[in-house]
């Protein structure tokens, strides 16, 4: 056995069945070993897509996603994917080839300082210099990636290390004296949290991406207490978007109800989140009357931005059940009366007196799937519309680039999710701008006949940027117009062997969507939609959530409004 075979053996021992990658000179020994390995390799068409697919594979399944790339340009192509995974706490192990040890540091052909480049966007990384270290390093990499607050780990393996003879043991001891995540919450802190919750008159539970592992625990907590639930972009699916206790998403493009609840509540239980600026808006105006109970596995997130009055460090799967045990049903009659009034006054609205709009397309997808599918998104207006109109009801089914906001994430993410959960329909909600950032992955979708429906809401614009220009840059529409040079998306899909459709009106949309969904095979639907739609409500950057612009979500603003 050589080092390359040892890498694959170590992956197998971690339970890896699928790897997303792209070969090249410095990783050829590993690709050679792959030839004899039971591990399935998915040949993406760009390394960035490999990293995103691995990321989404984890998000959809909870199993560590793995990607391969060669040295130099292959490895640097992973960077956006790793940064995306890092921001959204996704467990990825990336294995890269590098030039032989003797050439490292000499500016050799296709050499890049990959551990240096990826240092700030990985939870940890390794350069393996001795073939005997491979089993330990890989075991550590998986352990670090999946435990505590998950994150990406990169393992860089020089070519001669891959080629070196290996005769070692795979039963290795992990040796990480500096790494001991706190899983079990402190009993006194949990008691304090319970007391604070009991004392509150207007509490809310806010769940983030960390809650994706603890959907059952969240459910039990909310069922017993009757507490209203806000789900951040990353928390969608961890609590059912359709549930009566759900107030929807908070923040910049959150619902009126969720943002009003934040402004008026007297307690927030933040669970598995980091109070990102897109959620809080201006910090001094965020939840001014609230006691903050912050439960998270990463102590560095506690009181980083929002001061926690009751911090609890631990895994939600430990903390929430223990907290639930200390509580009973809460008396929230008046609070719910207020919340229900807001909900009733501010249902999701959009106009249908115009040409087709993104919102109705997305609402149609939600209706036809019943939310019983995996949703991935690209980044832009369509992403926000999807968060609001197409939240799913099960954990690990709503997959979007939150922290980094990476255009080009959605399509490769759909691929990763399709491999993670075979049999499920995956809907990729895309914009005409974003989809072109990793459009080459249509080949991967075709090759594996993945049941992915790509729904482009094609406004002919970098819509989100256009919205900011309209609202904050005096309608100076600088470099956002795409329509004059967008491809014919249906033809493009057909060129890749995928069913493609261009849809211009709501009647065709209504007929086609159920038809395409029923087929459970790759399809791309390009919905040509109204170009000037804006996402509302909107909390302008730097403003408080109480200063949100309600815009077209305002009641009786105009006729032709559909709820």
């Amino acid at each position: 056995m050589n080092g390359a075979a040892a890498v694959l053996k170590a992956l197998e021992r971690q339970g890896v069945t699928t790897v997303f990658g792209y070969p090249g000179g410095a990783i050829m020994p590993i690709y050679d070993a792959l030839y004899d390995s039971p591990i399935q390799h998915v040949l993406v068409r760009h390394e960035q897509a490999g990293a995103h697919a691995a990321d989404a594979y984890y998000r959809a399944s909870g199993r560590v996603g793995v990607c391969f790339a060669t040295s130099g340009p292959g490895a640097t192509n992973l960077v956006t994917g790793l940064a995306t995974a890092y921001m959204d706490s996704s467990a990825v192990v990336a294995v890269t080839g590098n030039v032989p040890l003797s050439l490292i540091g000499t500016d050799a052909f296709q050499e890049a300082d990959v551990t240096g480049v990826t240092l700030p966007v990985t939870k940890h990384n390794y350069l393996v210099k001795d073939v005997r270290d491979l089993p330990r390093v890989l075991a550590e990499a998986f352990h670090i990636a999946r435990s505590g607050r998950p994150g990406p780990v990169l393992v860089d393996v020089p070519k001669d290390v891959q080629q070196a003879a290996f005769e070692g043991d795979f039963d290795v001891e992990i040796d990480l004296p500096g790494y001991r995540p706190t899983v079990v919450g402190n009993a006194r802190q949990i008691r304090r949290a319970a007391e604070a919750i009991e004392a509150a008159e207007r509490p809310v539970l806010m769940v983030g991406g960390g809650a994706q592992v603890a959907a059952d625990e969240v459910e039990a907590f909310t069922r017993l207490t009757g507490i209203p639930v806000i789900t951040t972009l990353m928390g969608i699916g961890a609590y059912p978007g359709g549930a009566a206790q759900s107030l929807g998403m908070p923040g910049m493009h959150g619902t009126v109800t969720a943002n009003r609840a934040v402004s008026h509540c007297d307690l927030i239980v933040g669970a598995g989140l980091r109070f990102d600026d897109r959620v809080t808006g201006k910090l001094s105006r965020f939840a001014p009357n609230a006691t903050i109970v912050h439960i998270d596995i990463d102590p560095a997130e506690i009181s980083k931005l929002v001061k926690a009055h009751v911090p609890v460090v631990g895994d939600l799967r430990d903390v929430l059940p223990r907290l639930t045990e200390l509580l009973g049903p809460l008396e929230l009659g008046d609070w719910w009366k207020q919340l229900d009034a807001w909900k009733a006054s501010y249902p999701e609205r959009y106009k249908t007196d115009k040409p087709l709009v993104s919102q109705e397309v997305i609402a149609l997808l939600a209706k036809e799937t019943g939310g019983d599918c995996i949703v991935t998104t690209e980044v832009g207006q369509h992403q926000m519309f999807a968060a609001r109109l197409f939240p799913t009801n099960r954990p690990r089914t709503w997959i979007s680039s939150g922290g980094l906001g990476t255009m080009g994430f959605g399509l490769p993410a759909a691929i990763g999710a399709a491999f993670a959960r075979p049999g499920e329909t995956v809907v990729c909600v895309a914009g005409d701008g974003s989809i072109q950032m990793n459009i080459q992955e249509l080949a991967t979708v075709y090759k594996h006949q993945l049941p992915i429906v790509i729904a482009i809401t094609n406004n002919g614009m970098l819509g989100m940027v256009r919205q900011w220009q309209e609202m904050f840059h005096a309608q100076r529409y600088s470099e956002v117009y795409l329509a004059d040079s967008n491809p014919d998306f249906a033809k493009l899909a057909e060129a890749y062997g995928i069913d493609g459709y261009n849809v211009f009106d709501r009647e065709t949309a209504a007929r086609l969507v159920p038809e395409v969904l029923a087929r459970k095979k790759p399809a791309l639907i390009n919905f040509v939609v109204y170009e000037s739609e804006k996402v509302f409500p909107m909390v302008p950057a730097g403003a408080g959530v109480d200063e949100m612009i309600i815009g077209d979500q305002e009641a009786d603003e105009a006729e032709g409004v559909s709820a």
Partner: protein
Amino acid sequence: MSVRRHVMSVTVRDQPGVLVRIAALFARRGYNIESLSVAQTHEPGMSRTTFVVTGEDAHVEQMQKQLQKLIDVIKVIDHSEGPYVDRELMLIKVAVRNPDDRVEMRQIAQDFRARIIDVARNALVFEVTGDEAKTDAFIEQMRNFGVLDLIRTGRVALPRTASRNGTSGAAADDRTASRSRVA
């Protein structure tokens, strides 16, 4: 929010790149470090970095938590939280322009318990250890003669009591919550 000077020690595993990780963290999160020193400890494979940073308590606490997140960081001590001893070492080369200077400089060195470690025809090199106030004062004294060159190690520090081990243990309150190991 009180802005104070914090003397911090970070015990790390001697792994390639560990210093880079610490330096990158300081740079990325915008922490301004006044001094930094690194050397091995008595435990094989372990090094200790001592640095001085001035900042708001909350800011420094966040920095401590971020450091603790690094996989190769074993423990972080904020010495300012309890009694500690600290020293820095300075080597300073001072011009000798006439024999009287030499006598006067020797006298000052004695007062400061500084050692002369090199004697040349036109310069002396002193070794001074102490806290920064002392080394600063010594520099002041020597300015009149003409400081030709100097180097300071930056502070190193140890807690005074045997029991203070820095960050460890489960979260009991806000302070200790910050110290539990990260994910």
